[in-house]
Structure formats: C-alpha cells, structure tokens
C-alpha cells in the first residue's frame, strides 16, 4: 500500500470565469511508505496546491487522491498525516507544550496522556526545557522545530511540509535539514516536502519531483542516490553534486518554455 497515490488529478481554480487558473493538469504521483519526496519548481507551478490536495484541504477538479489506502478525506478525518508550513503557525496564547498537545486535544486524548506525549515530542526535537515558554519567546528555528513536533505528535505515518525552512537563515536551515532527516529516521515517517531550493531537495530526498507551471504539471522524477544515512559530509559527496546537476537540468527544461519563471528557484 502506497503512502500517497495521486491519479489523473487536475485542479482548476475559478473554472469558467476570466480568472480561471489551471493550477495542476493530469498529475500522477505515487509516494511509497518511507519515502522522502520533494516537490520542486518555480513559484506558481502548483506545489502548494498538490500538497493541499493530498491533505484534503482542497478537492481535486478531476482525478483521485488516496492516502494510506483511503480517500484523502477519510485520511484527514483519521489524522493520518501531520502538516507544517513556512510560518510555524504556533498559537501565541498557548505554551509550547500546549501547542504540541493541540492535535491530541482534538483527538480527545486525556490530559496526562497529552502532556506525556508533548514532552516526548520535545525530547525528539531536542527542546525539552521549553515546554512552559510561549512561542514568541523562541527563535524562528526553534518555532519551526516545535511546529514539526506538533505535526508528529499524533504519530502520523505521513508528514506534509510546505517550504517549512523557507523563512530561516542558511545556517539554521542546514541544521534543520539534518534534524528533520534524523527525526524521520527515528519515527519512520514518510515525507512530502515542498521547496524551491535545489540543494535542500537533493539533500533531503530519495526522490525529487520536478514541476513546471502554466499549466502546473510534473515534468520529471529524479531518484537521488545518497543512501539513507546522510550527514553533513553528504553535502560534499559526488552523488550530491550529481543530484544537484540533474535537478538543475530538469528545471532548465522548464526554463526553456518559460524564460522568466525559473527565477523562482534558488540555486544555493
């Protein structure tokens, strides 16, 4: 059973009006359990839309989305996935621990069980001493780690992330990438990760999905051959540079059609 199965999906916003946008056209994608899949492409190519379709925050215009063998709607009701965005989206009026407890509250867990799990998650993201602080007392990177802890609190098998490190500085970002890989290894979580950074996509993923805009579609799937145990040394490996070159070339394909739009992709 695949973690995610997207079959013949298209998404058209404002259909039949002058503002019609063909955000996605005929998208097919399968993500296997244990995969780390990145979606990369210039802005406006439908990465976020595809992620929201998987999350059932949007309904496809045509086609079907299956998560853990169920309809994406059922998977959402069962909280089969956790989600994280570019903005950490923590609630300022809740302590760090209470933020992590929120999805569990909505699942109807009792207080002690929630608290125990929140502390366990704080250990996982290496911020155990921050339970009683408020989010605004934390740095951007710490907030994002709390957001990841919250997304994983209910132990979902699938994690959906939309440019979660996009607002962080480069050093914090690389640290967070390493941490995310460690966390996913420890929790055996499948990840679908939206980014517009080529090195980030290659470093994290075993598969990179290259997309192009107007209409949004998948143009290439690139397997990254870096093995499972990646470290900072991975960033100097030949296979890492090969991966980067492969993704860059695939994106250049989108460049030929759409001269301006590839600027949305960072080459760092």
């Amino acid at each position: 059973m695949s973690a995610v199965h997207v079959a013949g999906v298209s998404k058209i916003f404002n259909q039949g009006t002058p503002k019609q946008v063909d955000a996605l056209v005929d998208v097919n994608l399968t993500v296997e359990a244990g995969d780390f899949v990145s979606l990369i492409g210039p802005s406006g190519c439908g990465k976020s839309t595809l992620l929201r379709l998987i999350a059932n925050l949007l309904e496809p215009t045509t086609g079907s989305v299956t998560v853990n063998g169920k309809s994406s709607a059922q998977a959402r009701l069962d909280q089969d996935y956790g989600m994280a965005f570019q903005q950490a989206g923590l609630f300022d009026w809740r302590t760090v621990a209470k933020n992590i407890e929120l999805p569990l509250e909505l699942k109807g867990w009792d207080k002690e069980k929630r608290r125990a799990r929140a502390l366990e998650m704080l250990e996982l993201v290496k911020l155990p001493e921050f339970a009683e602080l408020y989010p605004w007392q934390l740095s951007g990177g710490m907030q994002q780690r709390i957001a990841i802890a919250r997304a994983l609190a209910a132990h979902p098998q699938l994690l959906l992330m939309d440019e979660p490190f996009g607002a962080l500085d480069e050093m914090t970002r690389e640290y967070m990438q390493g941490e995310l890989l460690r966390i996913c290894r420890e929790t055996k979580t499948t990840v679908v990760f939206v980014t517009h950074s080529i090195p980030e996509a290659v470093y994290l993923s075993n598969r990179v999905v290259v997309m192009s805009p107007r209409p949004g579609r998948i143009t290439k799937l690139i397997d990254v051959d870096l093995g499972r145990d990646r470290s900072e040394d991975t960033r100097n490996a030949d296979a890492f540079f090969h991966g980067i070159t492969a993704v860059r070339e695939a994106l250049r394909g989108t460049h030929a059609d759409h001269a301006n739009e590839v600027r949305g992709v960072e080459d760092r």
Partner: protein
Amino acid sequence: MTVALSPRRLRSVVPPLVFGLAFLALWESAVRGFDLKPYFLAAPTKIVGEFADNVGLIWDSSMVSGGNAFVGLVVGTVLGVAMSFVLSRYRFLGELVTPLAIALNAIPIFVLVAVLNNMYSITSEIPRRFMVTLVVYFIVLVNVAKGLTQVKGTHVELMRSYAASDFEILRKVRVPNAKPYLFTALKIAAPASVITAFVSEYFGGSQNGLGSRITSNIANSRNATAWAYVLGACLLGLGFYIISVALENVTRKEGAPIATKQGKIKK
C-alpha cells in the same frame, strides 16, 4: 499587578508628572498674578478646596453618572460580544452591519437621548443608559467581530488538517484570537461610556448627575464648584479606564504577550 518603580517606569512617569505640576503652578500664579476673578477662572487651590467641601455631593452625583456609565458598559459589552459571534458566523450580515456600525461610531449618536427623553418619564435614567449601551455596543461589536474573523490562514488550515469542526475552530482559534481585541474595545469603551453618560445629562432628564451639576453650577456663577465637579468627572473617567486595564492584566496569563491592534506582539 505589581507596580515596581523600575528606572524605566520612573522615566515614563516622572516627566508627565513634572509637566502637570508645572502647568498647575503656572495656572495658580496666573490667577493670582493677574488677579483673575473666580467667575472667569478659578485657581487650582480653590478648586481643590471646593472639591473637599463638596466631596459628599460630588460622590453622590458621580454614583449617578458612574452608575449609568457602568450599566451601559456592561449591557453594551454583553450585547456587542453576542452580536459579534452572530456576525462572524454569518459573514454576509457582517458585510452589511460593520460599515453601518463604523459610520454610526463616527457620529455623536448620544444626541438621540433628546428624542429618548421624550419617550420616557423625565426622571428615568433609561434613556441615558440606553445611549451608553449603544455607544459601547458598537465599539465592542466592531472590534470583537474583527478578532473573531481575522485569524491566520495557517491556523485555520492546521485546524482543518486536524479534522476540527467549525465549533472547535471557534473555541480554540477565533475566541482566543478575539480576546485582545475585546480588551482593546474595553479600553476605548470605558472612557467613552463615562463621556456619553455626562453628555446625555445635557439633554434634559433629572438633574442629579455630574454633567447636570457642572451646568447648574456654571449657571449660578459658581465657577470653582463647577470645576470641582469637572475634577470629579476626570477621576471617574480615569477610574473606568483603570478598571479596564486592570481587567486585562488579571485575565492575561502570566507572561503572555499583548497583541497590539496592528497584530504585532509586545512584551
């Protein structure tokens, strides 16, 4: 609430205090120096003297005006909060009512009290309380409705990803988000309720409140006494403001940030 006199707090308290005292001293010396007659301008010392002599009467009329303001503040807040929930539930209603509420807020609707006085017995406090209620109602309605609807998109998407119902989103996102907006509204509404209560007294009805006493003392050329009532009015307004700020401090969790109107967070 601790009022520690840290150097920073001192720096923010001392200059206005010094300025205020200097102003009073200038006033006092102007009255004495130019030998201004009391019916023209009374000296601060004289006003304070009158205040002390009439403190019982001033207290009684403060209770009347303050009572009206308080009743209107409470009723207006309750109704405003209730209506803001209705508006946030039915957006189209919000689009109809909010511009109207803002427009009504901009005009001095308390002149309506003149009309209301004709509808009730001349000694009734109801028209005044109604006016205060109306003013407070719109202030609370506009602000709290904003707090209930202007929530972060990410927060709503997260809640939906947890399969949260609309009611759970209301309880766990919209209501907490609206709390600072309610306090902002109260900080505006508390002084406004006192002002409305005073001004309503100028449009007839029984002559027992601070506003009426100020007019009647001026009419009788008892200028210093009128000023003493003005002082009472200032103290009453200040009292209401302090209550609204204290309320915010009590309900705010220890260490939690205050969301300012711009949505920025300050500590």
